[in-house]
């Protein structure tokens, strides 16, 4: 293909991938292969062996995670560019790769039993899940708006399917449609922005490819030094950031979150809340501190205001909810606010660090903490039988601790980590973000974050309170809950990690 194109225009020759390039995305290729393997298994395996499919997917994900640990540029300080600058890898992209892999792995644990109980196909779900995961992994490494947009759209299309996966549930379908409309709008904004930037910078001397992040960064640096950034470029940048803010769920692009999260099947909600949010957070970070860094003076106030409003909207909104999934959806908005705040700190004071961690590391740590907390909580939710998955009132949790001490503990650790209670990793992550805000002297954002944490205690503890009070006579379901061994081990490992992980991060600092 490339050789054919090279015959048309020699410029394409530069794009021809070297064999070393393929090695850099081996984990992504492996995850994509794994997704095909799921389909293949569904076709070939006899029905009695079908339960192997999720097991294969999980084993594969663990192996890929190990592989990316071994092959990733962990030890290299410099960035690794591949595919003629389409992709760029460094320590943070490897870290966020781990976030996506972990999130997919945990989603698979949630989904298997959940889908079987609802008589939905397990193999197809895993197939789509893995495609989305691979796309997110590529997205985090993209250094070019073409790979960026393609990866983002691949992931989005997969997520539309996962949100509307329960075809017999009106709520799931409604959520799917809502997500489709909101996602389509965000893609349109993003594409419009990309086109404006492409056009506005295309004619700048020295720029050969005005979609390449590195070249955009250089062009913007030159222009802003000369004070000649065109309004068209600014509009484009604003639109792109708006499109990304949609994925992240930041104010004012958070309106779709409560409905979609509540209606989606709970495993998808957990995946949406962690992997999709991580993708939004991380792309925002690489865009804002990469190609758009020269515009920091203009972008930073925008993000700061966004962070304050996101923190307030998420926390105050969650205060008024009684449905657990909805509460967690809006609390996820407030977590997006925390990430936005960290990104803002990176723009206001480049090179800012907290306890020796730079902003990218803090964001990855925050995301990992958030993944742990979310999945611990989701485990407790999914284990409770619910006729309608989109109705999870707090009352349904009543007596959880008595029915299954392990799940009660899982909820406690999960909510505790989300609420940022020491010594959980969630607390350490919040502490790092707050330290960043102090170092960058972002007082208003700091204030909003602190108010948010104080407010959040109310809704988080309301959830916990139902779980710990003893069931009364008129509660029908008081039978003990049985958990498979795998879930028990998983909950134990996650809880232990959420307890020790944060301390480990601070050890010796």
């Amino acid at each position, binding site marked *: 293909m490339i050789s054919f194109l090279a015959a048309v225009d020699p410029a394409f020759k530069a794009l021809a991938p070297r064999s070393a390039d393929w090695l850099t995305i081996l984990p992504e290729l492996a995850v994509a292969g794994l997704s095909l393997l799921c389909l293949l298994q569904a076709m070939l395996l006899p029905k009695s062996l079908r339960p192997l499919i999720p097991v294969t997917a999980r084993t594969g994900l663990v192996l890929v995670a190990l592989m990316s640990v071994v092959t990733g540029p962990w030890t290299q300080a410099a960035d690794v560019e591949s595919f003629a600058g389409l992709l760029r890898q460094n320590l943070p992209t490897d870290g966020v790769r781990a976030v996506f892999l972990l999130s997919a792995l945990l989603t698979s644990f949630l989904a298997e039993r959940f889908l079987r109980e609802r008589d939905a196909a397990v193999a197809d779900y895993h197939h789509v899940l893995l495609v989305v995961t691979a796309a997110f992994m590529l997205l985090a490494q993209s250094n070019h708006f073409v790979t960026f947009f393609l990866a983002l759209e691949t992931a989005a299309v997969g997520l539309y399917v996962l949100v509307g996966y329960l075809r017999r549930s009106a709520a799931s379908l409604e959520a799917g449609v809502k997500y489709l409309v909101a996602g389509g709008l965000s893609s349109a904004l993003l594409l419009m922005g990309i086109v404006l930037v492409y056009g506005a910078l295309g004619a700048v001397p020295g720029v050969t490819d005005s979609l390449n992040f590195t070249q955009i960064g250089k062009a913007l640096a030159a222009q802003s030094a000369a004070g000649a950034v065109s309004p068209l470029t600014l509009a484009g940048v604003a639109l792109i950031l708006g499109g990304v803010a949609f994925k992240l769920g930041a104010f004012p692009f958070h309106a779709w979150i409560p409905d979609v999260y509540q209606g989606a099947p709970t495993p998808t909600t957990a995946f949406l809340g962690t992997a999709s949010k991580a993708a939004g957070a991380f792309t925002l970070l690489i865009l804002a501190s990469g190609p758009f860094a020269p515009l920091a003076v203009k972008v930073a106030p925008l993000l700061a205001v966004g962070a304050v409003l996101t923190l307030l909207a998420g926390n105050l909104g969650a205060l008024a909810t009684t449905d657990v999934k909805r509460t967690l959806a809006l609390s996820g908005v407030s977590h997006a606010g925390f990430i936005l705040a960290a990104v803002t700190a990176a723009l206001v004071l480049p090179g800012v660090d907290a*306890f020796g961690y730079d902003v990218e590391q803090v964001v990855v740590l925050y995301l990992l903490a958030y993944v742990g907390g979310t999945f611990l909580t989701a485990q407790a939710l999914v284990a409770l039988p619910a006729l309608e998955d989109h109705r999870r009132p707090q009352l349904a949790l009543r007596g959880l601790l008595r029915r299954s*001490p392990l799940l009660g503990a899982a909820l406690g650790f999960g909510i*505790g980590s989300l609420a940022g*209670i*020491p*010594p959980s990793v969630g*607390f350490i992550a919040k*502490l790092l973000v*707050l*330290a960043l805000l*102090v*170092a960058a002297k972002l007082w208003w954002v*700091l*204030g909003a974050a*602190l*108010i948010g*944490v*104080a407010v959040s*205690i*109310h809704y988080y*503890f*309301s959830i916990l*309170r139902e779980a*710990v009070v003893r069931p009364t006579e008129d509660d029908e379901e008081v039978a003990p809950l049985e958990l498979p061994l795998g879930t028990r081990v998983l909950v134990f490992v996650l809880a232990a990690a959420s307890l020790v992980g944060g*301390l*480990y991060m*601070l*050890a*010796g*600092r």
Partner: protein
Amino acid sequence: MDTFPATLLALAVTTPILVGLILLAGRDLPRGFASGFAFGGFALPAVLAPWLLVLWSDPATAPQQFQSVGFWGFGFALNGLGAPLLAMTSLVGFAAGVKALDQEVEGRNTYLGLILFMLGGTLGVFGTNHLVGFYFFHEFALIPTFVLTLFWGGEGRRPAAMQMAIYLTAGAMASLAGILIAVDAAGVEYGAATFENVALGLQNAKHLPAAVGALVLFGLGTLASLFPFHSWAAPGYSAAPTPVSMLHAGALKKFGLYGIILLGLSSLDITGGALGSWFLWFAVANVLLVGLICLAQRDLKQLLSWSSVAHMGPVFLGIWVCGVTGQADGLDAAAFLMVAHGLSCAALFLLANAVRARAGTYRLDELGGLAARTPVLAAFFVAATMASVGLPGFGNFWGEVGVFLALRAQPLWLQAVVASTVVISAVYALRAVAATFFGPASEALEKRWAVAPFGDLGWAERAAAGVLLGASLTIGFVPSLVTRSVNPVAAGVTTYSQHNAKAPAKAAQPAQR
């Protein structure tokens, strides 16, 4: 540096936490084993921490004594203010532990484990000299407090626990912001952010705005029940199970004051300017308004809870006057009162629960005449009340007298206000004693006695109360036990704060002195 005391310190802090962890993990451990194990967790610090206080040598040579490297990089280190508070906490923890072991509760091992966590966290706060460690252990102690109140509390526990959680989290967040800003402004690495280093760093840094001082003062003040951030406190102490009330009102709230002194007073100028006047008015309100609220209480435990808030007034005034005059005596007295109040307050909560166990109620109008039936309980209760109102011989006396003396150069109205606390607290405390133990027994009590006669104070309760009152008497007669470690710290704090004090604050110091 001698490593032996350092090992004692590390053991004193980590033992309760480790024992608590094992009890939490072993929910089904046999009762006898769990009891013995938990007793060890409560008793060991109560031996080690007072021993450390006795070992305290000349603090001038080493600002942080008994430094050791703890787990996860949180170094344990004891400063002169922390040493007596650590000892007090360990004794309150021991008494609370004996009480908890004496109780019959559901999920006993978890209950004991969480109380051990509270104790370990509180000991950790006083046993670390590091600001991140301070904040960490402070939250580590608070979370079990919320859970214990929510689960095992008495009447009105759910709203009380929720209110407490929100107030204290808001306060913790404000203080966390203050701490982070102070460390950042001091230019100290987080790994080296001890109280001394931050104070030294802030001396050389440019003056921080008063808002930072306000964050620390009001954030930590919420925990120490400073007016008007106190409204969670009395319901919270009242609703909590007795061992938790003892630890919370006795020991936990003191680390709010500890932080205010070592961070706020020493380096953030919380007593100067407008912030200083707010501080004064709030402290006066703690004394007067909360004192009046105490007068209106008709429930023994509510009364103790409110009086525990009111007693913080003199402590705040001691801290305030130290910052204004730059003389150490106010801080000395405040620190002494912190230690003494912890002991007397815990003893009162313990004994009030003994009253309730016998009479079945905390309501003062349903009590009366208990002295005839439970003379030992009455004797202990009267002694604890006397300690609490500041009778000479008990530790509280030195604290209260010290605060009054430190205020001697202040305007007359302020002295009058503070003197009125003696009257107010004597009125409500003695009235409560009279209504509980003397006079004719109420009808309800007579009926209860007729149905099921109750015995006098049990041995476990005698031991617990005896330890607390004995310790109060000991520091009452040998005040140097506390003062010799506190005085150099107070002197150091005043040096720092004078350096930071602005001109108007210095002018408040009268010319004739």
